[in-house]
């Protein structure tokens, strides 16, 4: 008799109907979005603040203190420093920049000072420093009778074009985007395993502590029950994930429309990476590269591989979680068995992040994309950089083989463990159970 669909249905429905599950499903995106909105709002608030800076320029720089949207310059003339300080104190101006007048440019540039009530913002100071550095460099060049226009004209910007032997072009942005896709896929799998693997474990423990297990397995085979649990819980997990994405997306749109802030700008850190990469290059170039990078990526391969490695990796780990759940009596006893599961998982993420960035096809990343406990995460991170299909297939084959082994192994432990009460098993005992 095949009861698998029935078990899956029950597991799914109990999970989905569970109050804390429903609350988590609805509340998580709300909290996330609220958090992002608050952060975005606050940083916007900070950015929009207009600062007025008084300038007492005894030397008389030209065209440096031009007011912008966020920073206004109030140039004082014909006053001494003491009076200027007093003046600034009376107004609510942010601070006073003082440039003295000497004949030696080096001396002047070494004696520029900024007076303010509170310690000034770091970014403002470095902004001013950059401005003044540029100006005084120019002045010194003029003094040395160097033609600035010639220097400007002889500046060269280099952007090394990348192309592989089959003729696909790529760029730095390309690599960054690939990295983002890879990391997102790997990280997603990592999170999914931890959240829903735990859920499976808890549901196995629940069956044990409520002592219903013996009734159930007098009707169904333990392996069936275990698979039913894994599949049912995964489906519930996917449901929750999809709701999170859709609901979160809708919320995000609403919030950004209502508050009029672009949440994307502040919430996605890759923006900064992209900006770093495209620094000194135009916005058009950046969009062009982005489009180019997307089309360069093996998207089909990525999607297919994502599905297979995701399922394979998830099932591999969740069968281990189920085995742990079967081996112990309550959740506090799970700690000693959690470490060996979490270690390879965390290792995979770190290897993925550190070695794949450095060298996606190096020995370390290649080897770890074959080792089954790390391969799902590491391989998913490598694939955007183009991994030969045969490598992917071998890795997948090893993964499936290991998965079958762990399911067999977990089923053995499960079968014996679910009927064991009262004692906390050691690893030695677990090995013995396999022979029962």
């Amino acid at each position: 008799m095949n009861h698998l669909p029935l078990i899956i249905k029950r597991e799914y429905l109990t999970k989905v109907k569970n109050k804390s599950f429903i609350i988590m499903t609805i509340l998580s995106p709300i909290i996330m979005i609220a958090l992002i909105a608050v952060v975005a709002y606050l940083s916007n608030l900070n950015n929009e603040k207009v600062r007025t800076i008084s300038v007492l320029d005894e030397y008389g720089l030209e065209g440096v203190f031009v007011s912008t949207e966020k920073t206004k310059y109030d140039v004082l003339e014909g006053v001494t420093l003491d009076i200027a300080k007093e003046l600034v104190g009376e107004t609510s101006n942010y601070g006073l920049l003082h440039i003295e007048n000497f004949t030696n440019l080096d001396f002047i540039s070494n004696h520029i000072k900024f007076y303010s009530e509170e310690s000034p913002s770091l970014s403002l100071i470095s902004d001013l420093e950059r401005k003044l550095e540029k100006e005084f460099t120019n002045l010194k060049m003029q003094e040395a009778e160097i033609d600035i226009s010639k220097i400007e004209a002889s500046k060269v910007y280099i952007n090394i074009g990348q192309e592989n032997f089959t003729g696909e072009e790529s760029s730095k942005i390309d690599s960054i985007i690939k990295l983002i896709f890879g990391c997102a896929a790997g990280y997603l799998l990592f999170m999914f395993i931890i959240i829903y693997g735990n859920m499976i474990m808890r549901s196995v423990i629940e069956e044990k502590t409520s002592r219903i297990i013996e009734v159930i397995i007098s009707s169904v085979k333990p392996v069936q029950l275990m698979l039913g649990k894994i599949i049912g819980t995964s489906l519930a997990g996917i449901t929750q994930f999809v709701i999170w994405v859709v609901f979160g997306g809708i919320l995000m749109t609403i919030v950004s429309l209502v508050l009029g802030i672009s949440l994307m700008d502040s919430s996605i850190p890759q923006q900064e990476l992209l900006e770093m990469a495209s620094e000194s290059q135009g916005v058009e170039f950046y969009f062009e590269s982005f489009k180019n990078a997307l089309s360069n990526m093996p998207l089909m391969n990525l999607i297919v591989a994502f599905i297979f490695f995701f399922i394979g990796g998830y099932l591999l780990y969740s069968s281990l979680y189920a085995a742990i759940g079967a081996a112990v009596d309550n959740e506090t006893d799970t700690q000693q068995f959690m470490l060996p599961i979490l270690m390879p998982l965390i290792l995979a993420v770190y290897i993925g992040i550190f070695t794949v960035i450095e060298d996606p096809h190096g020995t370390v990343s290649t080897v770890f994309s074959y080792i089954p406990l790390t391969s799902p995460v590491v391989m998913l991170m490598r694939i955007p950089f183009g991994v030969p299909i045969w490598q992917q297939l071998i890795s997948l084959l090893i993964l499936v083989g290991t998965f079958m082994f762990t399911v067999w192994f977990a089923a053995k432990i499960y079968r014996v463990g679910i009927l064991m009460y009262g004692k906390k098993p050691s690893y030695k005992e677990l090995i013995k159970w396999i022979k029962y």
Partner: protein
Amino acid sequence: MSNLLEVHGVSKNFGDFKALNNVSIQVPKGSIFGLLGPNGAGKTTLIRVINQITMPDSGTVFLDGNSLNASHIKDIGYLPEERGLYKSMKVGEQALYLAQLKGLSKAEAKQRLKYWFDRLEIGDWWNKKIQELSKGMAQKIQFVVTVLHNPKLLIFDEPFSGFDPINANLIKDEILRLREDGATVIFSTHRMESVEELCDDIALIHKSNKILEGKLIDIKRQYKTNTFEVGLEAENKTALKESINGKFSVSEANFKSLNNDLKLNIKLAENETAQDLISFLNQHAYINHFVEVIPSANDIFIQTVQNN
């Protein structure tokens, strides 16, 4: 009468521990079969073998003439000693689920559940969660789930634990009624008074071995010691006792009586009969009480276990 269940030479080891050593039992069709033994003797392992939860290392089990296989799951109803239900699931949903696992269709399960719930007057529990019910209430539901699919073989492990006397009686009557309807019952318990009351056949398992099996009545015959409990009225009790002691082996007896009698247990030799004893006693005293000492299941249990 044929046997519904036959266990032939089943052994099971857990590592170095021998849980069952070449155990064979025969459970006649339509009987109530008591599976007895001290704690840790191997009863639960044997029951799990019959339920196909544990695979035996060697030996075979036949149910209704066929070697045990997956299709037999629906023929067995099992109420384990360690029993429970999903705490956060509603009674009705849960019962339906468990019934479907035993192979009933949803509609049929629903119909039968309704019948049983009405019968045990628990119909209004359908939408309650198990955690809202008392232990006894949950036990009733477990009982219903066990018998719902009309199994040929019912296995109850300590079925009365957790029930108050009224409900225990109710369940006992239900078990007897199920037997009348043709079910065979295996009954594992430590409560010897319910064994006396219910069981036709028993098997005693001790330290992984079966050490006794048969009809309860035959076993009692086998274990009786030809001893009689007598209450005698006489003027000189000491003299009377001594004269009996000269002829039979005598020990003090303790039973309730309305008279101030001399109470004795008199054990006869193999060639002596009750008639011999009565005619002897009649010559010396007035017999108020005369009854053969029949060993109780409890006595048999203790005696056999201690002798092994």
